[in-house]
């Protein structure tokens, strides 16, 4: 029988990467001087599992590499080796090498052999083994074609208590030879009254006649019981020179290496995002349960279809049934969504290491505090949020936290703190990266933005607006491009990536006290709670989550400002009015503000009031991508199909605000042009 092992590879990779993360965080704890045996054990187990799995699934290079790591860890947990910083650092390095090896295998690319051999050498250096002493077993004993063998097998009385069975051993011996002769020695068999059925009193002499097997093969049969029996194996050759073979089972004949299996197959998937997901069984049970409920409701409803007479009471019950159906559908949807949810710790895991490495290379002292690691979010979002998060944390580390000397001068503790937290708020996931560094430098940002032509010199901006400039394309503040932050990726890419996930990012900063980057993400990319609004004949959808309030316009609160802009005064706050019909160039029912409604929405700390003809109702909508079906359109995040079959476009609030601001800016320019 041949089984295609490739079907288990994806699982193996997944659990191996998880194992590497576990090793990494465990090693980092060790690095901090917390030597805890259970922790070392956990690290060891992960290495051990990766080694076992890689060997089994044919990734011999990985298995060999892990072997030395495992040996080192084994010495550590047995107390044979001190846990020192160099040892831990080497192991951390090995984790990286191992990760890149696994990535290479999974993606079908080349393993960096130099890297691997360098790391192997440093581990071996610690272990103090030279390559030569790799313990290759001595050349196999010359085992001539003997005429046969005589095996004297005397099991100890307790052999049955390990689940071993003499009959099985005899059966196996039988399979080695064409012909066997068995003699039973019943001498030590006690009288029946004293006989313990759980004990073994007999011994055997077995002649394997004309058996073309080696002594090792016979020993192999007894490998499991060699400490539970006396075993003597004699060759039946005429000149029985191989008398050494008669010794009692001393040589622990290890099984031979199973022959190397087929070369490591290349995984077909090249992307780093895995296509499978591991789901807690309780989530699946919940789903099945919901489907059961749905079936019951369905059968209840179908009764109405069959019944002939339809009266008020049946209609009442039909309504009940439909309400139940709606409830179940929603619950089912939530259960399905929960299957895709994973704790954010998967994205957070890499940060202790990152911060550790970076603070060393910047000569800064930084403590990373993480909270809310169990907050769950959609797997796709989780996979894509990793890179933006790394960028923001790097940024806080590089630009935010000051050097120990500067901090002391400013009267702060030497060690800076970066807080990474995640929590639910409304229907959103909020991730915050907070540092207690110097805060953003307002003047520097403004000057830079002027240099880059992002703002005009006389523009009056609030602090928050100035801070927000760092997210504009073409903005980078670092005077000296460090190898950490200056990787050609700016904050604009961070914002773009987060927006692609339907999320938003904003920054708040206090000089001398630090900055907070706040990322808001939707729970899922698939479904959205939408507010339907009518403009002329068209229906648009606003995400309910961004709506602050809707109001009827009081004309005395409308102020016109320069450049064709209008603002609405709402409780001492002036909010720009966006006439959606202008932006989308459609014909509204009315252009008079006081005959329509304003919907105040917020994204990334900015508010606008959207002018619409009417509010139509709220419903959950399934988001269909415009990009995959048509092309990306600024200000829209997708489309959906409404209950009546028509298509409605979903407004991307953050995009709309950008669009509006650009519009205003170009108006300003044109007005200026006219004035000049």
């Amino acid at each position, binding site marked *: 029988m041949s089984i295609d092992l490739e079907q288990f590879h994806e699982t193996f990779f997944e659990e191996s990467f998880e194992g590497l993360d576990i090793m990494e965080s465990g090693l980092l704890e060790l690095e901090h001087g917390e030597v805890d045996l259970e922790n070392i054990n956990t690290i060891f187990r992960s290495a051990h*599992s990766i080694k076992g799995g890689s060997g089994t699934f044919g990734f011999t290079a990985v*298995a060999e590499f892990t072997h030395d790591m495992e*040996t080192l860890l084994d010495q550590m947990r047995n107390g044979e080796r001190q846990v020192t910083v160099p040892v831990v650092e080497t192991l951390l390095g090995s984790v990286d090498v191992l990760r890149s090896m696994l990535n290479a295998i999974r993606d079908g690319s080349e393993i960096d052999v130099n890297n691997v051999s360098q790391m192997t050498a440093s581990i071996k250096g610690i272990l103090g083994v030279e390559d030569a002493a790799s313990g290759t077993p001595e050349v196999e004993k010359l085992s001539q074609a003997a005429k046969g063998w005589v095996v004297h097998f005397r099991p100890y009385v307790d052999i049955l208590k390990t689940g071993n069975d003499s009959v099985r051993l005899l059966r196996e011996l039988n399979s080695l030879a064409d012909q066997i002769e068995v003699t039973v020695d019943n001498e030590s068999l006690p009288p029946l009254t004293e006989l313990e059925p759980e004990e073994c009193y007999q011994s055997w002499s077995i002649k394997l006649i004309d058996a073309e097997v080696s002594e090792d093969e016979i020993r192999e049969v007894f490998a499991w019981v060699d400490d539970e029996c006396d075993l003597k194996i004699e060759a039946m050759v005429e000149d029985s020179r191989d008398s050494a073979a008669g010794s009692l089972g001393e040589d622990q004949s290890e099984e031979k290496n199973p022959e190397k299996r087929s070369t490591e197959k290349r995984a077909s998937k090249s992307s780093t995002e895995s296509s499978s997901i591991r789901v807690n069984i309780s989530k699946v049970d919940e789903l099945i349960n919901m489907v059961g409920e749905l079936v019951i409701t369905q059968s209840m409803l179908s009764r109405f279809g069959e019944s002939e007479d339809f009266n008020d009471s049946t209609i009442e019950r039909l309504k009940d049934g439909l309400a139940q159906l709606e409830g179940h559908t929603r619950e089912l949807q939530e259960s399905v969504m929960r299957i895709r949810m994973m704790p954010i710790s998967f994205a957070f895991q890499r940060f202790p290491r990152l911060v550790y490495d970076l603070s060393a290379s910047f000569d800064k002292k930084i403590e990373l505090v993480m909270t809310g690691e169990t907050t769950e979010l959609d797997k796709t979002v989780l996979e894509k949020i990793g890179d933006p998060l790394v960028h923001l944390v790097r940024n806080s580390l590089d630009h935010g936290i000051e050097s120990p000397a500067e901090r002391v001068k400013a009267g702060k503790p030497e060690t800076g703190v970066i807080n990474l937290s995640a929590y639910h708020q409304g229907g959103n996931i909020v991730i915050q990266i907070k540092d207690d560094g110097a805060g953003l430098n307002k003047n520097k940002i403004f000057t830079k933005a002027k240099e880059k032509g992002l703002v005009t010199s006389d523009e009056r901006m609030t602090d928050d607006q100035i801070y927000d400039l760092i997210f504009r394309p073409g903005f980078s503040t670092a005077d000296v491009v460090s190898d950490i932050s200056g990787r050609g990726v700016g904050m604009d890419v961070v914002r773009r990536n987060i927006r692609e996930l339907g999320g938003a990012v904003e920054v708040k900063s206090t000089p001398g006290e630090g900055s907070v980057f706040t990322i808001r993400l939707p729970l899922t990319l698939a479904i959205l709670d939408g507010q339907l609004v009518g403009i002329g004949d068209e229906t648009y959808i606003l995400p309910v989550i961004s709506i602050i309030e809707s109001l009827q316009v009081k004309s005395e609160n409308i102020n016109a400002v320069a450049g064709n802009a209008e603002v609405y005064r709402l409780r001492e706050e002036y909010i720009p009015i966006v006439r959606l019909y202008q932006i989308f160039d459609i014909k509204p029912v009315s252009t008079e503000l006081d005959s329509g409604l304003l919907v105040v929405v917020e994204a990334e700390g900015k508010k606008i009031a959207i002018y619409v003809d009417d509010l139509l109702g709220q419903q959950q909508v399934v988001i269909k991508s415009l990009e995959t079906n048509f092309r990306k359109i600024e200000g829209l995040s997708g489309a959906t199909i409404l209950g009546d079959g028509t298509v409605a476009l979903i407004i991307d609030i953050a995009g709309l605000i950008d669009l509006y601001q650009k519009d205003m800016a170009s108006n300003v320019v044109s007005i200026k042009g006219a004035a000049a």
Partner: protein
Amino acid sequence: MATILAVDDSASMRQMVSFTLKGAGFQVTEAVDGQDALNKAKSQQFDLVITDVNMPVMDGITFIKNLRGEANYKFTPMLMLTTESAADKKSEGKAAGATGWIVKPFNPDQLLNTVKKVLG
């Protein structure tokens, strides 16, 4: 058909063992660690137990020791999945009551041969 309890904290190994044995017609129950296995073994009688050694919560050797103490499992064959380098684990496991071992890495054929050998 014989029933087998397959214990391993590694999902891929568990899948591989279980898939192989099921393919040969055995009834396989999976467990993720020693404690899980012990609970399952107490609620259902198995003809053979195959367990990994290094596992969280309860390791394979402790599991074997515990299970061997159960009246129903006095003579049930119990195999450890262990690596070549772990000679001391083998004897430790034997002392705890293990019947024998399968050396990792192994392929499905090796696994199946051993299982068939033990179950006769």
